[in-house]
């Protein structure tokens, strides 16, 4: 099922900084990109100002295939532990992308019973509000 939001309690917005702006700008254009070190090629998520492998500060944004598999997941079923602006239950997943990085997100349209670790998924973009688009995931054929 698709996640439902309460209009009374807006979703928390990402805090966009000079280090992570490229990610969120791409999401707005329905593109998933990951930070990539220009010098050694390391892919990095979440974005940071220096490459932990070679200490370069020259970064670029590399397009993702958008495909990955569920690495781990949880189901928020109890209101006090969940975000009050989202109707429970809702699923949060960590997806391991084909290119190796992991990203935390939600399933766009899924039933709890269908979710499993290793499930093939692909990115979709959810335009939640004028100022907020989130990358989410849906099942794909392997």
């Amino acid at each position: 099922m698709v996640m439902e939001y309460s209009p009374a309690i807006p979703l928390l917005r990402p805090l966009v900084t000079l280090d992570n702006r490229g990610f969120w700008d791409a999401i707005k254009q329905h593109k998933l990109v990951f930070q990539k070190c220009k010098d050694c090629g390391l892919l990095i998520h979440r974005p940071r100002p220096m490459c932990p492998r070679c200490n370069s500060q020259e970064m670029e944004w590399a397009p993702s295939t958008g495909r990955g598999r569920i690495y781990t997941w949880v189901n928020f079923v109890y209101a006090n532990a969940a975000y009050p602006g989202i109707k429970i239950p809702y699923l949060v997943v960590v997806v391991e992308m084909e290119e190796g990085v992991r990203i935390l997100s939600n399933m766009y349209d899924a039933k709890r019973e269908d979710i499993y670790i290793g499930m093939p998924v692909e990115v979709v973009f959810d335009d939640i509000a004028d100022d907020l688009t989130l990358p989410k995931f849906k099942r794909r054929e392997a």
Partner: protein
Amino acid sequence: MTVMRSIKNKTAIVGIGMSKFSRDSQRTELYLACQTIKAALDDAGLTPEDIDGLVKQTDDASDEHAITSSMGMGNLTYFGECRWNGAPCAMVMRAAMGVAAGAANYIVVYRAVNGASKRRMIPSMRTSGQMSTSDLLQWTFHAPFGHMSEVGRVAMIVRRYMHEYNIKSDQFGCVPVVCREHGAKNPNGMFYKKPVTIEDYRKSKMIVEPLRKLDCYEEADAAVALVVTTAERAKDLKQRPAYVLGVSQNMVLETEELNTYYRSPVAAFSEMAQVGKKIFSMSGVAHKDIDCVQLDDSYGPFVPMQLEALGFCKRGEGVDFCKGGDRIRSGGELPLNTSGGSLGEGHIYGMNHIVEAVRQIRGISTAQVKDAELVLVASGAGGPASGLILGGK
């Protein structure tokens, strides 16, 4: 390593103070801090004028100057903070280094938190809208997806651990059962005479699947204080000293508070493994000589993962080690959290685990291990971690 070896056996915990655990203390946190520090000083046979050092946890609201002006400590020569869930043993390390180096003679380590009655704020909003870079990582890449709570992050780790080792969630039930069994004997705790059964565990409601209510600590109002001094000075005080034989804290590449699912393997707790190596090598103690352990049980499944990380069993065998609870209960080969810990005594961020280790060395625990001489404490599973081996000699 050389430096840390030099403080082996040279410092001790000589005073302990602990408030009652409650759901509403009806006191300010500063009140609890002062009351509990005074109790620790009385326990040691010291007065506030003797104290010349304080070690605080960053998130605590009771600042050092508020403590000194309330208690009449006139000449502080050493003060500072430790952060994260893994602060407790690291705070003892700071104090031990302080007294061993001669920066101060008697250092108090304290925490006082109205965790239950004063609604906890999400970390980023804790202090006047200021945000640290690590809060920013949480906020920006987790919050918009409804993933803010600590229990949600722990559930992510636990799900993957279950997948990797083919564990069913009810196999974690033995941890809260044993902790509550120990807590049921402890009149100071929140769960005195309130044991739970494995059946209660199975029926316990899901919070963030796969974690149940009984897997998670309950918020409490509580305070703890410890007094640390040199081994020399310890001999002249009231209590049997609990000597610091090994102590360490650790952070590895990609350490974050409870976000280990960005690295592999998620449940290996690499920081804790490093802490374990260091405290065993520093103390020269063998695993088989440890009389009991006081581990981070803020979430029950952390216990088998820590037993693996600390080397008490092999990777993936933690759940089998805890099976049925016989090894980890009072009277077993490695009694766990003998005061009840976070799940069975109360939650004060792992500080009570150190108090209980000292009680074991003194022989006054409510689940006393006979002739306990060596006790291991660990704090901060799944994040910046710390650990401690205390000894009676």
